[in-house]
């Protein structure tokens, strides 16, 4: 079974005056260990797809399973547990908790899981070391550069040993050089640990190092290429 399976998935937002059909007829799989980029123009539905795969939101149509579970059958609490234990997230705006230091931010997923403090700290420190921030453990987010913040976020996404990491425009707020560095870091982690990565971007330059590219146009898959 694939890590992620989507069958004719659609998503319609009903929040505004008229319903917005953000996604339709999405059928795709992501296998264990893949490194996938979802790309396409602004408004094409990348974030929507990312959120569905990451169990942050539920599809309006079709069937979606992630880490072996059908999204439609899960309660809000069950989805929270799955996200905590099996899925890591990296966000465009880094989304670090401003009052927590780098290491405390990385500890969060483990603390939510109920892991004892000392163990959380040890594992968080190890992961920060892995992303090259071993000497910045106690810095607050506002004392870190954009690239450093995103490294902390990557460490936080990986600290719980997830099967899948979702990154929605992880490089959009970074300069080109740093953006490449972050993508390279994710690629390296993917190859070392066989962790599956799915990231969204509208920046075509970042696609070179990616083995699989899914292009979205107007809420549906226009192209799915490998190699």
């Amino acid at each position, binding site marked *: 079974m694939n890590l992620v399976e989507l069958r004719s998935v659609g998503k319609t937002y009903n929040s505004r005056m008229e319903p917005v059909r953000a996604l339709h007829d999405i059928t795709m799989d992501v296998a264990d260990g893949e490194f996938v980029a979802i790309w396409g123009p602004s408004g094409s539905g990348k974030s929507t797809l990312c959120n569905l795969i990451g169990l*942050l939101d539920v599809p309006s149509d079709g069937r979606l399973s992630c880490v072996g579970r059908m999204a439609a059958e899960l309660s*809000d609490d069950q989805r929270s547990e799955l996200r*905590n234990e099996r899925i890591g997230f990296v966000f465009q*705006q880094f*989304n670090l908790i401003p009052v*927590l230091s780098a290491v405390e931010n990385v500890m969060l997923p483990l603390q939510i899981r109920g892991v004892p*403090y000392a163990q959380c700290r040890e594992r968080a420190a190890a992961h920060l070391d892995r992303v090259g921030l071993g000497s910045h453990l106690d810095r607050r987010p506002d004392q870190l550069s954009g690239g450093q913040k995103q490294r902390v976020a990557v460490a936080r996404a990986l600290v719980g040993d997830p099967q899948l990491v979702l990154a929605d425009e992880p490089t959009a707020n970074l300069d080109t050089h740093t953006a490449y560095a972050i993508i390279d870091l994710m690629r390296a982690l993917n190859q070392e640990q066989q962790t599956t990565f799915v990231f969204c971007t509208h920046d075509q330059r970042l696609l070179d190092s990616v083995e699989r590219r899914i292009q979205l146009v107007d809420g549906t898959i226009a192209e799915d290429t490998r190699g």
Partner: protein
Amino acid sequence: MRAWIVIALRNIWKNRRRSAYTILAIAFGYAGVNMFGGFKDYLYSTIKNAFIHVNAMGHLNIHKRGFTSEGRREPTEFLISAEELRQIKALVGARDDVVVVTPQLQIQGLVSNGQFSTVFVALGRVPSEVEEIQRRVGGWIAKRQYYTGEGLSDDHPENVALSAGLADVLGVKAGDDVIATAPTVAGQINALDGHYVGYFDSTLDVLDDKLMEVSLQFSQLLYDTDSVDRIVVLFNDDGDLEAKRDWVQQQLDAAGLDMEVWTWVERAPFFAATERMNNVIFLFMFLVVLVIMVMSVVNTIGMSILERTREIGTMRALGLKRRGIIELFAIESFILGLLGSAVGFLLFLVAWSVVKGFDPHWIPPTYSKPIPLEVHFVTSNLLWSIVFLSVLSLVAAIAPARKAANLEVVDALGHI
């Protein structure tokens, strides 16, 4: 849990200006409620001491059954005989915690200075036993001089003391004689010379020109009887008077003595009325404090939530359940309540010391002279209000926190 406390403390510090307002609102509420609570306790104990000790009402009053109902028309038909008194003294006095059992006889009639007369009411009591009851008083009343001039004494049963107003009306000086006139129990008119030795302040100004204090012997002579109309019982502590009353009643019933037993509270409606009034004022004040505090907390937590919506989305994405979000803000609010109470305690200490230092005096309603105004340090009130305000603060945060927790993760994350 530890992580949530860290997050809460740091956010309180980060928004210290806003937090300070909430903490101060809680602190002033805490201090205000406890200052009034301490004042209430002072009033309570002052009135209580006045009734039990200064007026020597004791803890329990024993009367012939019917004295407080039909006896109000014909008190002399409901008297306790000397033999019954002896039995009751033996029965009640057997209890270890009973310190005084003393008979009294209330009389009324006319008192004259030789030229004109006015009505009087007097309690005839055993001076040494009254002194014993008064001696056991606590608080500022203990330091007060009760009589100006001399008091009554067992050795001089003819001595009488007058309330300041009555002495004034009669225009008598210490050493003068007064003549008390009243019908005896049998119905003849009787007159008796009293030796005026000193005056006292009646606490109730309506009675200030009518009160007299005489020895039991004096009142019995005037009424030509060896009976009494009440027996006062004083225990060495105030605990569970109801049970003590029931015990005494049982002893009397078992001995075939047809008596009624009252606690001092039941015989002092003024006390209960003051209590009720204070409780209403206290409740009102408490409600005002409560509303201000809850509004302040809801506002602060609401602002926090608004500013940290994306943070809430992030925590949810990392796997925190809805419950966890509520806990996060409830903890923050609880800490605000705790800090507010702590600062409030300091404020209270300052205000309390100031009152103690200035030793202010006031004239309470129906009183005729100023008495010291105090605020008591009631440890249990101070502790319980810390618990109460902190928990209340926590509860106040639940509604806004629940709203935050119910946000869709995607919406919270998309919030800028």
